Structure formats: structure tokens, C-alpha cells
């Protein structure tokens, strides 16, 4: 027995009108919550954006639909719903530029492809430079981006002011703005809609989405994975794709291997909603601050990571304070605003701030983790590339550089400069 597909209604203006007549009481279920079958061809662990995207592209591009996505909480409840929604691809090295630009190209057609409005808004992203070293590093990154066909532009201070009129170029004397990299195709997307859109399409193609199902162990015989133990019983699997954010070392240790990641809390906060004041995304690597405005009008502000390892999903107050100090220096008009909500998520950071997409010491088990502070922007690309890796059972051109072996060969992909959050 395999999972059954279920055709969905299309979302369009006519459907909206028709459902308005019945007071929006008759919209169909977005995805079902089936009980797990005895076994699947592929079991994906982690129902965040990356995991659901992996399942979606496995079904769509590789014809594998007998898939279960296991989520320990609920869809959109983990880091997918906790990030600051920024999408860009201006990474320094060829390997990461290829991965993130691959994602960017998928983002550009995602709403149409999923028939789900992910509110992808290409409002542009600036990464500020505050001193001469920043300026040189930024120019180098912009030039590297352009060689890789990414729309990166270097702006001097006057150019920054033109794009972001609200900014104080003196940065209150503490954070002077000397220039910035600017990616016009970058922007934001509605984060949980991405998970919901993928979940809905997965369900349509017959993928089982199993929520509240925590993995407690693996059945491994002779170095080959046979299934996973979960809080809903044993589930057999020919292949297992692990896409955990925040708990990758815990999962890996269940399977008997170790990872070079450290789990840190990363936090974000939003203000009270105000009228439109900033129509782009401004990030400052050096001062751990990034800001954009949501469609609701809230300023969405991201802070840095706590220095210590933590699995508690909350950040420290003093980090949020540091970030807000920097935001107030750069945007003095926000000084009297109130912050409404603050939250944290656990990010698994690799020593080189690049992710791990790899086969593992266990046959049939694949791992996609370690996206650190910037996984959201890669969601479609990561899922697309990882699906190809799982389907073929071997690294693809995109995933090969991100193998675990890079920590032994020394072929690290050092993206601390482009990660935009100091680790």
C-alpha cells in the first residue's frame, strides 16, 4: 500500500469569489494528517521548509511519491516560522553562490509553481560596510558575485542614502556607513507560507505529512538503514533523509556518528506595526543587526547568536539590546518604537558557516543540516539539490562541495563574511 494523491482546488480569483459566497467556511483542508504506514521508499526527518521542499522535489522531479515527512512538532512551528524571512544569494565562494543562486531562481517562480502565494518580494537587500576593511571585503564579494552572474552592486555612501533615505549615514558616530553591497533581486518571502505551500503540494502528490512524530532512534543493520523508531512506532524506510535544524547532532548521535556543528540560539524581534517606512532589507554584518518591514507594518529585526551552545529556544536579552542600539543609531526615527514580540530558534552552525549536504557513514542515510543563521533563503535550492542527491544516492554537482569530508580534506567554504551574522 502506498500513499494516495489528492487533487487540490486551485487558488485563484474565482475560487476566492466562490468561497466568499459561503463566508469562507468551505475551503478544503491544505494537507491531511495520515497515520504512518509500515514502510516508505523515503522517510524525511524534519517538516520544515527544507524537508518539505526535499519531499516535493523528490516527488516532482524524481517520481518518488511513497514518502513520509516526519515532523516532531507542527508544520511551520520550527525555524521556518522563526526566521527574519530574508532571501538573497550574494555569497562569496563559487560553491555557495551556485547553491544560493539556484535557490534564488526557484524562488522567482515559486508562487506560481506551488499555486500558493509565498509573498516573495524582491525589494532588494543591502549589506552595510562600516569601515575600510568592510569596504574592501564587500567590494571583493560584489566582484565575486558578478563573476558568478549574481546581480550584486557596490554602493558608496551616497548610493546607500538614495536606496534607503531613512538611514543616518553617520550611524550616530558609532556605526558610520561607508558603503554597501546591494542585491536588487534579493528580498523577503512569507516564511510559513513557504512551508504551507510545499506541504500542500506534497500532500497533493501523495506524500504523507506526519506531525507530532518525534524520531527516537534508527534501525541500522550491517551499516544499512532499515527504518526509524518514532513516537508513533517503527517506520520502515529504504532511504532516510535527515533535514533537522537545531537537533542535527542529536539525530546523528542516534545513528552513531558525530557532526562538526554547534547549536546556538539565534533571535529575532518585531515592533509594533507602523506605516511603510523602509522598502528594502538592510543588514549590517558588523553590528549583528538586520531590518525590514513586513506587509503588516511591523519592523522585523534580527539579532546575533548567543556565544554558548544551547538547545533552549530563546536568546539573551543583552543581545537583543545590542541589536536595537545599532538599529537606533542607524535609523534614529525608530528610537521611540515599542517591540512587540521576541523569539529564538536553534541554529546549527558549522565551523565554516556553510551547510552540510552529504551522504553519511550509514548506507541509505543522507543528511542536510548546518545551515547556521541563513537557511531560509536556501529553502527551494536546498530541497531541490538534496532531492537529487537522495534520488541518485550520490553527490550531485551542487551538493558535492558540501560533503562532511571537507573538514578532513580542508576544502572549507568559509562564508563567515557573507553569512551576515557574526558567529
Amino acid at each position, binding site marked *: 500500500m502506498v500513499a494516495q494523491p489528492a487533487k487540490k482546488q486551485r487558488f485563484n480569483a474565482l475560487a476566492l469569489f466562490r468561497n466568499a459566497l459561503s463566508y469562507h467556511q468551505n475551503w478544503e483542508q491544505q494537507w491531511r494528517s495520515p497515520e504512518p504506514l509500515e514502510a516508505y521508499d523515503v522517510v524525511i526527518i524534519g517538516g520544515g521548509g527544507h524537508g518539505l521542499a526535499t519531499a516535493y522535489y523528490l516527488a516532482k522531479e524524481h517520481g518518488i511519491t511513497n514518502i513520509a515527512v516526519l515532523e516532531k512538532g507542527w508544520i511551520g512551528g520550527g525555524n521556518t516560522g522563526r526566521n527574519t524571512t530574508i532571501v538573497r544569494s550574494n555569497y562569496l565562494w563559487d560553491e555557495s553562490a551556485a547553491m544560493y543562486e539556484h535557490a534564488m531562481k526557484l524562488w522567482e517562480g515559486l508562487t506560481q509553481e506551488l499555486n500558493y502565494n509565498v509573498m516573495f518580494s524582491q525589494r532588494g537587500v543591502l549589506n552595510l560596510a562600516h569601515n575600510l576593511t568592510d569596504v574592501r571585503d564587500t567590494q571583493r564579494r560584489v566582484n565575486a558575485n558578478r563573476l558568478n552572474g549574481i546581480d550584486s552592486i557596490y554602493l558608496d555612501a551616497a548610493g546607500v542614502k538614495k536606496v534607503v533615505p531613512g538611514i543616518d549615514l553617520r550611524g550616530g558616530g558609532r556605526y558610520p556607513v561607508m558603503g554597501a553591497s546591494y542585491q536588487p533581486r534579493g528580498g523577503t518571502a512569507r516564511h510559513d507560507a513557504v512551508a504551507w505551500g510545499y506541504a500542500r503540494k506534497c500532500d497533493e502528490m501523495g506524500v504523507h505529512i506526519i506531525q507530532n512524530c518525534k524520531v527516537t*532512534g534508527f534501525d541500522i543493520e550491517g551499516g544499512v538503514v532499515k527504518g526509524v523508531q518514532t513516537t508513533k512506532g517503527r517506520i520502515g524506510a529504504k532511504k532516510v533523509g535527515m533535514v533537522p535544524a537545531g537537533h542535527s547532532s542529536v539525530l546523528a548521535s542516534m545513528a552513531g556518528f558525530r557532526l562538526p556543528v554547534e547549536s546556538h540560539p539565534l533571535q529575532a524581534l518585531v515592533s509594533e506595526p507602523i506605516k511603510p517606512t523602509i522598502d528594502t532589507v538592510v543588514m549590517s554584518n558588523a553590528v549583528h543587526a538586520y531590518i525590514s518591514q513586513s506587509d503588516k507594518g511591523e519592523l522585523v529585526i534580527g539579532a546575533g547568536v548567543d556565544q554558548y551552545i544551547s538547545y533552549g529556544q530563546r536568546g539573551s536579552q543583552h543581545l537583543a539590546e545590542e541589536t536595537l542600539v545599532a538599529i537606533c543609531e542607524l535609523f534614529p526615527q525608530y528610537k521611540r518604537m515599542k517591540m512587540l514580540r521576541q523569539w529564538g530558534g536553534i541554529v546549527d552552525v558549522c565551523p565554516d558557516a556553510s551547510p552540510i549536504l552529504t551522504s553519511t557513514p550509514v548506507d541509505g542515510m543522507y543528511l542536510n543540516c548546518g545551515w547556521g543563521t541563513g537557511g531560509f533563503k536556501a529553502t527551494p535550492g536546498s530541497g531541490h539539490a538534496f532531492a537529487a542527491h537522495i534520488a541518485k544516492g550520490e553527490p550531485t554537482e551542487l551538493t558535492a562541495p558540501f560533503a562532511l569530508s571537507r573538514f578532513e580534506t580542508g576544502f572549507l567554504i568559509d562564508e563567515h563574511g557573507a553569512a551576515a551574522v557574526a558567529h
Partner: protein
Amino acid sequence: MLLIRCPYCEQERPEVEFSFAHQAHKPRPEAAGEPLDDHNWARWVYYQKNIKGVAHERWNHAAGCRKFFNAARDTVSSEIVATYKSGETPPVPESRIEGEDLSFDYENAEGGA
């Protein structure tokens, strides 16, 4: 912000005075009696236990006495169970890594001691 007791200063001080210095009690490969090859070197440099539960960590009192010391800290609640001087025996054991019982011995997957 954490309040951390420096075992050298014998004072509880705010976290901003300290820097986190990763996993404690991690001997170099040759000290652990292993050959110093790429594999073991990568394990020593890059691999962390990354424990969920009570972990032994190194901290540096960077804006104080500047000495390194060790702490046993719960990585879920952030409670600091104990701090102790470098070279001392940990007063509390580390949590076992979740699911370790189920693991098999793949090329001695353990990290440092």
C-alpha cells in the same frame, strides 16, 4: 544574561565578561594515543560533542582575570551546575548524548575524552 562564578576570582560575574571556549576535556589526538592523521585532526579541531543536557565547557574570564576554567552547564535550561579550575576533575558527570545506546561503533565515532 548568565551569571557565571569564576573559580579563580571566586566571584559571580555577568556573562559579558566571559567568552565561551567550547568543549572541555578534549585531548589532542596524540595525547589520546591516536595517530595524528587528517581524520583525527579534523575530529579534534572541528567536531564537537554538542551535548543536549549537562555539558563540560571551557570558558575564559576574558574581561576579568583572563584565565581559562571549566563549567558544567545544562544546555537546555542554561543552568550552570558548577564551575571548576582547569585540570580539576569535573564535579558532575556529563549527560549522555541522547540515543547513544542505540548507536553502533562506526570507526570509533566518539570525539575527544
